[in-house]
């Protein structure tokens, strides 16, 4: 029952997003623009590119993510749809997880579209160990979405919500972004994840679990005044 | 060591007090603003009550 409600909310969000493609298009375009701008910030042909590739990729993902996450609750404002969802029998946790899942899928789409583009532009090996790449993407993006969706709900009625969300989100996501950058850099330079690197995987998993639990526990307080 | 060492020590101590004083000033200014607002709202309330 709970899972079906989660799925209903998620499917609703995905359907309306795929129909307008507002968040998807803008965040994809934004991410690609940032990747392009990076080529002017340093020599794109240099060998050190692999050493900073993780950082570059995750910075553009983080910027793109803020655009998607902003829309998550903002899209409910028109016609007071958020109220309609809150007074429906769906528990706050199901509503939250459904919306988080939808944003997560959208963010993954953007990330997976950027990865090959980055690989081509900057001549790095992204296709080897693709499974590992996906693993890191999923873990870090979930952390980013779960906190981002929560803050999207927190800031939805604020005046400067578009500005507010990134300012609240980024400092808090530094541990997750740090791990993701490190692991992606390792993968991009052709190494395997093992030994010392596991600590970062464990950190990502820990962050995901802790923040998901915190968000699910507190979302009802946020939604119901 | 040298004189620079000594000067920077005083910079350090000065920094502590400058930050504290700036914060205290901001508190005092906020206090004043709040008092003014409180007076304004009280007066507005009395006006409205008198009109009823």
């Amino acid at each position, binding site marked *: 029952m709970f899972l079906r409600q989660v799925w209903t909310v998620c499917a609703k969000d995905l*359907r*309306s997003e795929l*129909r307008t493609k507002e968040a998807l298009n803008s965040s994809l375009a934004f991410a690609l623009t940032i990747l392009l701008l990076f080529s002017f910030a340093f020599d794109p042909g240099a060998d050190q590119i692999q050493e900073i590739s993780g950082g570059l990729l995750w910075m553009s993902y983080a910027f793109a993510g803020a655009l998607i996450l902003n829309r998550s609750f903002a899209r409910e404002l028109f016609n*007071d749809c958020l*109220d*309609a969802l809150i*007074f*429906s029998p769906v528990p706050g946790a199901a509503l939250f997880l459904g919306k988080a899942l939808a944003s997560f899928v959208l963010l993954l789409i953007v990330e997976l579209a950027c990865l090959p583009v980055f690989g081509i532009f900057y001549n790095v090996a992204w296709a080897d160990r693709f499974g590992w790449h996906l693993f890191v993407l999923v873990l870090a993006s979930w952390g980013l979405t779960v906190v981002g969706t929560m803050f999207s709900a927190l800031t939805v009625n604020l005046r400067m919500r578009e500005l507010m969300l990134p300012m609240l989100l980024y400092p808090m996501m530094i541990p997750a972004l740090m791990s993701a950058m490190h692991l992606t850099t390792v993968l991009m330079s052709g190494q395997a994840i093992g030994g010392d690197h596991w600590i970062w995987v464990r950190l990502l998993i820990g962050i995901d679990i802790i923040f998901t639990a915190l968000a699910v526990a507190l979302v009802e307080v946020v939604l119901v005044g | 060591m040298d004189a620079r060492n000594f000067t920077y020590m005083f910079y350090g101590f000065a920094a502590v007090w400058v930050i504290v004083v700036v914060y205290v000033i901001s508190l005092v200014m906020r206090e004043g603003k709040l008092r003014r607002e409180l007076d304004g709202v009280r007066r507005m309330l009395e006006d409205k009550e008198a009109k009823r």
Partner: protein
Amino acid sequence: MNAVEAGGLWKYYGDYPALRDIRFGVEPGQCLALLGRNGAGKTTLLRVMAGLTAAQRGELKVFGRPVRDGQARASIGVLGHGIGVYEELSAFENLRLFGSLYGVKDAAGTARAWLDRVSLGNVGDSLVREFSRGMRQRLAVARAFLHEPPLLLLDEPFTSLDDRSIALLQAVLAESLKRGATVILSTHQLREAMELATHVLLLDRGKLTFHGPRPAEMLADPTWLYRRHGEA
């Protein structure tokens, strides 16, 4: 068991009490009109009853359950200021979505039936974005009523509706009352409300000043209660 039982509700905005010690009970089948001036707390009270916001003190039971209980909310239908339907979804998708959120058994079938009921059957697959105002309002009525809720909460339902939507709303309301549903509505349109209301509740600056069966005098003179309880 009462449909709604409010036991000493207090709702604060900061230090300001928007609701002060509200106690009342609504028996099933009653139609209660919430009256009071702007800012008296009608909308706040309705929002508390709908589970949109929580009172800081006192408890509110809907059919014997706390309002944030899923089953309690499944038995409430709400029609508020906003229409609560999605622009990027079709009328059918909207109704099916809310049908399944409310646990209606055959959500798709119910959605189709209600589309016909509110005469949107032929445009059911168009996006709400393309709808006129009146069509949206009729869709909102369908959204609020499609799970046949035993308790209906309506906030200013007749304000800004066109004639056709008013007629539709009155028809489905009458039908709901006939099958034994409880209706609570806040309104400025006293005349329309008085024809439906069996009971009235008057709020003044967050305090409950009158609750009881609708006085007979109000049919002829809807403002009778206001004058009687010392309000201009």
